[in-house]
């Protein structure tokens, strides 16, 4: 055995003969692909920047406090959509409470109580499918069930209930995910000192899962805030001059108002719509910000 090694290799010649490492070729592939992935990222961000650019270009001059304080008017100048902003807040509050209560309850049942079996699988599959149903279908359901069958009428409550149903599957799935991520060790520890199922859920599983549940709910709600189609179906008014006075009043919502403005022939209403979209986006971003804050804040002291 000679100890000589090739100057360019770390291995003895006898070992090297059995291998063909192609290091240059492998590195080329790797570098090339990293450029492709970078390009994909850039194009995604670029589209977003373009979108924001157009919005701000068209809407900037129209962005004023009038938007927040004034109501719908025939002239774009001085027109606002306070009723729509308040309508959206009412809708989102109602939908959020409804979907949180029913959604978390369902998630607890499916994860902690329901026996594994064909029935549970069937429920699970259907919940996943429901989250993929187009939102206008929920609008039709809301129209048939709440507005007509339950005879609530074309009022805010019907819109809130419809929105609640729309985001319910998302809340259920997010809550299930959060509950499933609670470590088994925590459950075992609690059962081990003689806790009942509910005591384990109430004192350990839910507090540990709450950041995830709240994040999921807020993200679902911020989806609801941008929905237009189901609201039009269940009867949100496009033209309204008063703020909503409660769950049984006439109402409109931000995206409905924006849609109405963009459909007007006058250019200035389209610019006004761009300004309104900026307001809508600020609301959305702050809701996402709250979700992130809650996740960080509540998630501090954990296993």
């Amino acid at each position: 055995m000679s100890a000589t090694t090739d100057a360019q290799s770390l291995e003895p010649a006898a070992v090297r003969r059995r291998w063909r490492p192609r290091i240059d070729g492998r590195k080329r592939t790797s570098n090339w692909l990293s450029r492709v992935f970078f390009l994909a990222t850039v194009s995604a961000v670029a589209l977003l920047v373009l979108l924001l650019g157009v919005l701000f270009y068209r809407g900037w001059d129209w962005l004023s406090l009038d938007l927040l304080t004034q109501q719908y008017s025939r002239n774009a100048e001085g027109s606002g959509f306070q009723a729509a902003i308040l309508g959206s807040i009412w809708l989102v509050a109602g939908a959020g409470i409804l979907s949180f209560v029913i959604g978390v309850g369902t998630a607890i049942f499916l994860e902690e109580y329901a026996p594994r079996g064909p029935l549970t699988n069937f429920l699970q599959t259907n919940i996943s499918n429901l989250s993929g149903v187009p939102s206008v279908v929920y609008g039709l359901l809301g129209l048939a069930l709440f507005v007509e069958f339950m005879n609530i009428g074309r009022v805010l409550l019907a819109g809130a209930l419809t929105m609640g149903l729309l985001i319910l599957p998302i809340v259920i799935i997010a809550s299930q995910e959060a509950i499933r991520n609670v470590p088994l060790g925590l459950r075992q520890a609690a059962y081990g000192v003689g806790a009942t199922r509910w005591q384990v859920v109430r004192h350990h599983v839910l507090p540990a899962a709450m950041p995830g549940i709240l994040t999921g709910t807020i993200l679902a709600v911020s989806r609801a805030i941008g929905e237009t189609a189901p609201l039009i179906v269940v009867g949100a008014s496009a033209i309204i001059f008063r703020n909503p006075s409660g769950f049984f009043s006439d109402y409109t919502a931000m995206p409905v108002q924006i849609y109405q403005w963009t459909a007007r022939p006058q250019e200035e209403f389209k610019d006004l719509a761009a300004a309104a979209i900026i307001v809508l986006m600020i609301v959305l971003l702050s809701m996402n910000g709250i979700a992130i804050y809650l996740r960080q804040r509540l998630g501090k002291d954990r296993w």
Partner: protein
Amino acid sequence: MSTDTQERTSPGRSNSVIKDGGEFDTSDTIIQLRDLNIHYGSFHAVADVSLDVPRNRITAFIGPSGCGKSTVLRCINRMNDLVPSARVDGSIVYSGVEINTPKVDPVEVRRRIGMVFQKPNPFPKSIYENVAWGAKINGYRGDMDEHVERCLRQAALWDEVKDKLKESGMALSGGQQQRLCIARALATEPDVILLDEPASALDPISTLKIEELLRELEANYTIVIVTHNMQQAARVSDQTVFYSLNERRQGVLVESGTTAKIFTNPDDQRTEDYITGRFG
């Protein structure tokens, strides 16, 4: 450490209950396993285990990985009820009562038979709450502060944590966390404490502390410990139970007896091979 021996009576450490031949006197048995068979789905994990656990003694389960020692341990306080696919057949008699039956509520069983797990798993709550919670949910009516202090003292943790009871149990070191878990198990005033490899995630010093602690607790509690560490079994236990796998890959109980006998003069060749390091 003698802050609290309560009204429990210690049988002492006399050898009078040990009969010749390395067996414990069956009249002082607290848990009796008979013909225990455990299935996970279609997998027959443990076959025909019968065993007597003597009161106020430390029983160690040893054996190679996957031989069912933890599985048997988890039957004793019905923890396998939480595994949907698990089925436990056979008889588990605790203090004269059959507990492996749907008629007995596992919640009540677990209060009397506490458990400490392999990985320290304190609740993400304060040290105080970690101990108090089990007592609270089970309706403890005495002075809670006193109770928490008593449990922490029994777990040899009081001096280290008495000034930071409000701090999170997660902030303690691994060894302290495991002693906190022992204190938590003591808080429901159980008769029996099951420990599933309690020291396997700990450093040698912390391990030694846990072992010393078990020796102190023995006066008031019956202890069953699963361990991978044979020296630990030899150091800490009175009775040793050796499990292994049979030719059908089922966990079986090979031999049980006083620790002295199992480690010096086992009856079964497989036991001897295992403890001398020729197998496993």
